[in-house]
């Protein structure tokens, strides 16, 4: 007899990480275009945009680590970021917030 298994819920850490993955995909997409670009204004603009996405990614990495630490250490003091807030954040970043 098969046992019905319930899929594990998606954690906030996974959501933030997936969001970072999307940024990486965008960064890499711009980087590929930069690599084939001639020395034109377009190349310069592209490079600038790629740098900005990279910086956004750099800003987000601490959030990834922070989310992971709060989830892997539930006894951590969450006085400034209650579980409810983290849950709302998880939903928002996942793109499901209405």
């Amino acid at each position, binding site marked *: 007899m098969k046992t019905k298994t319930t899929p594990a819920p998606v954690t906030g850490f996974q959501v933030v990480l997936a969001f970072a993955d999307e940024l990486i995909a965008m960064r890499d*997409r711009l980087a590929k275009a930069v690599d084939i670009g001639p020395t034109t204004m377009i190349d310069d603009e592209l490079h600038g945009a790629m740098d900005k996405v990279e910086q956004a990614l750099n800003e987000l990495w601490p959030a990834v680590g922070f989310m992971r630490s709060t989830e892997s250490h539930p006894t951590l003091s969450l006085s400034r970021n209650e579980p409810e807030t983290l849950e709302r954040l998880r939903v928002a970043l996942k793109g499901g917030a209405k």
Partner: protein
Amino acid sequence: MLAPAKAGRKPAAVRSEPAAETTAEAKESHVDPAQTILAIVRTLAGLEQRLQSGRSVTATSCPFSELLEKANQQLAEARQTIWAMGGLAMEGLNDDERPIFDELAGIGEPVYIPGDGQANTVKPEIHPGALVQTDHGTVAVVVSRIDNAIILRAIGNDDQNEHGEHFTWGIDQTYAAPIEGGKGGAL
């Protein structure tokens, strides 16, 4: 995890005049650069919106709030920069600039719509926000990805034959294009 930064920047050069009128065949092989820019801007705006939503549900004292705000600002600047490229694209492109936009569009081989008798698989590495082009010339944006398919939404040049008759793939219609043998079809 991050790719190494480029060793050096190429010097910016003065943009030359667009090449003379290209052949009809060459035109058909490329996606409209303006649509490419629009697709990337939309993707960046979507990411910004999600970050903004995330920031709005966190208290200002929460460490997340500042991180999300900074990331959001960088994305907004990236979007504005890409948006500025739209102006260049509208002026017309040199031949050596077209491959850049094709790369940005994420176009490799055409995507063939299921049910039309053509091969109908999509490369698994295709990502949301990429533009694809069907064998009939429809330009579609990859909206999302599910288990074995990507969801496409047509954004321009809806299919029509030489008599002007439209196929079933209309603008704003969505389709699931299968990846590696999955099932696809109209949604």
